[in-house]
């Protein structure tokens, strides 16, 4: 089985027994999310259980491309199970992370790990190739995520890592084990707790850290010395060099990549002040890292929102100067294992409540935080530790700030005004607001979580960044849209799918965009595990005509590794199947179209946008002409969103009254047994 190790590790924590699943049994789902959903479907008989139930099954899956030379696809690991973060129902959900874990799992001979049951006391799992042991974790429990990993590294090698480490006389490596672990937040069952790997790779959304804590699972460590078989090694090497030379960043001509995603002109995805004495840091196999490690030793490997979390407060406190507080605060999130979105939006929320006089010394909500120290390391440490150890009001914070607001009796009011910027399923809004960039919001509310899929955000950044600095955006909207829609197979060449004007955002065209996005990401990004940071590559300014790698690249690499003859469209269709299976699971959990709604502020408060986002531009038509239009100032119309949902369900072939999948659609995808189960539970759509 080219691209596969051939077996999946199944661990029942309750009796500490391990067994294997033959990967072939699930090969039709290809890998990652598809396989995870299918395994979850089979193993969890009662989908109504909550995430803390020992019967909850957590799948940790790789893809056939994991551990190979495919650019930006070698290192993601997909985690799934019933989550504990969303509301009103903890949906069956997902989160993936980069680093070294998935490749190492493959080299050890495993396509994934399936966690069942609950250990009677803290354990960690030690995987050294075929050898798997469930071990006592008494000495690790209570340690932060970094210390835990260092302890395990030492335990596995018996000494350091400056030389070859012998796992057995015939298996050697120079590499440290890849460890996925929880910190104190997870141990204390925080719904905002993450799984952390290395310094800054996190499976953040869903609350998987708290779920591991409830299962008494501290860490999984894996070290492998084996191989991933590749169907066409020459083809893979050729494709890698082709993609790199043609589409990625040319160090001698960086400027050419000004509008590219696969090879980005500014590779580092960090928002704090960068260090000059540093390196770019990549996940295994990546052609262009997005992380950094600096000579300060602070902020290693953190990216995106983690780096945004405290830098503004730090600068505000220190007269516009960035101090070490910003980096240390982020490191604390990583070490205690806390979801940076919750910490970030939550901190914004409680400071708003403080200003209103509702929280703090004079407010109804008692809070021990010393806000005079906001911006200092001391405050960050206090805030993070309160969450991790559920100290004082930290017990509310650890529940996530949506549930905290509910405990404080403020939920309805603060969702109406939007000071609690939690737009869907009780989860923090991402920055690409549903009122502005609708495909992000629609995808999130029609799914299970904040999608965190940046496929179309360059349609916002490209024009907006130019306008922010007083330049005319180039290329013109019509040309950019044309380049994008050529690649939206099987709905290709329909420019109206990318018309973000208020008149068009409830249309069938926009519904098609959301459908395309759901299917593309479910397969190519969450099952084959192409990384969201570098894929898809719609527009690439290094190429004459600006046509990017997407469409050609995804299947070319996939086929070189697996030897299959998959087309891009085949992948889209399999994405549809996986998306349908997910909806069947949500349906069994209790989903109905009546509950598919944004928080009130999305319908009532016009989108202002903060900072640069106050000037949010996207392509759209005005008077029949394509332009970059400003989308601030609008709300979503609740009635029209209802009509949009009907259009969306129709396109998916789902019951428009309930949003449930129906037999015809499921059977057309080869999911007859899923239809039977839904019918048995009286949840089959008509």
């Amino acid at each position: 089985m080219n691209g596969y190790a051939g077996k999946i590790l199944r661990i029942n924590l309750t009796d500490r027994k391990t067994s294997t699943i033959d990967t072939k049994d699930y090969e039709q789902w290809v890998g990652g999310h598809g396989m995870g959903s299918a395994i979850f479907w089979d193993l969890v008989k009662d989908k109504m259980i909550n995430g803390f139930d020992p019967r909850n099954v957590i799948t940790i899956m790789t893809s056939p491309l994991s551990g190979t030379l495919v650019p930006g696809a070698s290192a993601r690991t997909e985690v799934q199970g019933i989550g504990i973060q969303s509301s009103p129902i903890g949906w069956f959900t997902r989160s993936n992370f980069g680093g070294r874990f998935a490749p190492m799992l493959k080299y050890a001979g495993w396509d994934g790990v399936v966690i069942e049951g609950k250990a009677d006391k803290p354990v960690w799992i030690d995987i050294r190739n075929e050898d798997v042991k469930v071990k006592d974790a008494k000495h690790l429990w209570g340690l932060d995520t970094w210390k835990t990993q260092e302890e395990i590294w030492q335990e596995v090698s018996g000494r350091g890592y400056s030389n070859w480490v012998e796992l057995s006389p015939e298996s050697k490596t120079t590499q440290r084990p890849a460890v996925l672990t929880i910190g104190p937040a997870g141990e204390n069952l925080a719904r905002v707790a993450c799984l952390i790997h290395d310094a800054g790779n996190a499976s953040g959304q869903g609350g998987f850290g708290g779920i591991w804590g409830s299962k008494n699972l501290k860490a999984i460590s894996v070290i492998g010395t084996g191989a991933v078989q590749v169907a066409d090694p020459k083809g893979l090497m050729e494709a890698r060099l082709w993609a790199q030379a043609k589409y990625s960043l040319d160090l001698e001509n960086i400027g050419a990549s000004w509008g590219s995603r696969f090879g980005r002109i500014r590779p580092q995805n960090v928002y704090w002040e960068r260090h000059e004495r540093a390196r770019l840091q990549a996940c295994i196999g990546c052609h262009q890292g997005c992380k950094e490690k600096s000579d300060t030793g602070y902020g290693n490997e953190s990216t995106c929102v983690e780096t945004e979390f405290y830098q503004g407060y730090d600068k505000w406190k220190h007269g516009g100067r960035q101090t070490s507080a910003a980096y240390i605060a982020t490191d604390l999130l990583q070490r205690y294992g806390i979801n940076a979105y919750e910490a970030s939006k939550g901190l914004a929320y409680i400071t708003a409540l403080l200003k209103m006089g509702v929280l703090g010394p004079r407010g109804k909500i008692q809070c021990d935080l010393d806000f005079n120290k906001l911006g200092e390391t001391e405050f960050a440490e206090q805030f993070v530790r309160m969450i991790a150890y559920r100290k004082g009001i930290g017990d509310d914070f650890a529940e996530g700030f949506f549930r905290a607001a509910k405990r404080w009796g403020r939920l309805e009011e603060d969702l109406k005004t939007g000071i609690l910027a939690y737009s869907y399923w009780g989860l923090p809004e991402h920055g690409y607001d549903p009122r502005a960039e609708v495909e992000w919001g629609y995808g999130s509310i029609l799914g299970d979580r904040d999608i965190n899929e940046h496929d179309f955000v360059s349609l916002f950044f490209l024009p907006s960044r130019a306008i922010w600095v007083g330049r005319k955006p180039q290329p013109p909207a019509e040309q950019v849209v044309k380049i994008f829609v050529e690649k939206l197979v099987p709905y290709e060449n329909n420019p109206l799918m990318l018309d973000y004007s208020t008149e068009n955002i409830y249309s069938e065209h926009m519904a098609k965009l959301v459908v395309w996005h759901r299917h593309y990401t479910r397969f190519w990004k969450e099952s084959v595990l192409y990384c969201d940071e570098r894929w898809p590559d719609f527009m690439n300014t290094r190429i004459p005509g600006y046509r990017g790698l997407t469409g050609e690249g995804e299947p070319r690499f996939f086929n070189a590794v697996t030897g299959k003859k998959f087309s891009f469209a085949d992948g889209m269709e399999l994405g549809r199947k996986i998306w349908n299976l997910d909806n069947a699971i949500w349906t069994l959990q209790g989903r109905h179209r009546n509950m598919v709604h944004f928080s009130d502020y999305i319908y009532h408060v016009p989108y202002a946008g903060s900072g640069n986002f106050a000037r949010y531009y996207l392509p759209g038509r005005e008077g029949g002409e394509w332009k970059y239009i400003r989308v601030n100032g609008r709300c979503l119309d609740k009635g029209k969103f209802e009509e949009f949902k009907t259009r969306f369900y129709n396109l998916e072939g789902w019951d428009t009254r309930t949003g449930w999948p129906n037999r015809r659609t499921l059977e057309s995808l080869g999911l007859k047994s899923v239809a039977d189960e839904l019918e048995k539970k009286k949840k089959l759509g008509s």
Partner: protein
Amino acid sequence: MKKKRKLNVQISRRDFLKFTGTVTIGAGALPKLIWVDEAFAAIPVSEGYLLVDTKKCQGCLSCMLACSLVHEGTENLSLARIQILQNSFAKFPDDLTMAQCRQCVEPPCVEACPEKALYVDKKNGNIRIVDTKKCIGCKSCIQACPYEPGRALWNPEKKKALKCDLCFNAPFWSEKGGVQGKQACVEVCPLKAIQFTKNIPEQKGDSGYKVNLRGESWKKLGYSTD
């Protein structure tokens, strides 16, 4: 004291050589003569070397994956003839090291091989290379490599030793390798942190092999070139 013998090699001024326990002559000029231990005197120097920049490396291990892929046809970090060691929690630049075969002027691995299976391929740029047909799997070469981590590896499946051949024998690559061709690690490195050279690097210590390849363009990424 070890016996020394004069060795005639064509080297540039940059390739000023200094061996442990030996005296170098011709410093400052264009030396045509170097002194080597007698045991190695009959061994011609390699016509190709890999240089690395450990401050430029992004730790993606693409060089290791490419090495294993073109030589073995599979992805296997343990069979990569170049090794990258890194620590997520350490400070730059000590968080990462790169370990490539040095194609030593005085190759202990060649000397250690009892079967002359690890030999100097005089027809092909004097690359220090393993003839797997002759290799009896005694691991003498692996033990003889004085560097840490050792640059000669063991293929447990085939029970043979492996080492960098500058891609001279890379059956799973369409490109021609060796000193006259391309090397997979050099070609694949996204940041060009590995370079091929025909000039003999300084043999003492690491400075000849771990070099600065950053150049002016590196500043455009916001990083120091020091």
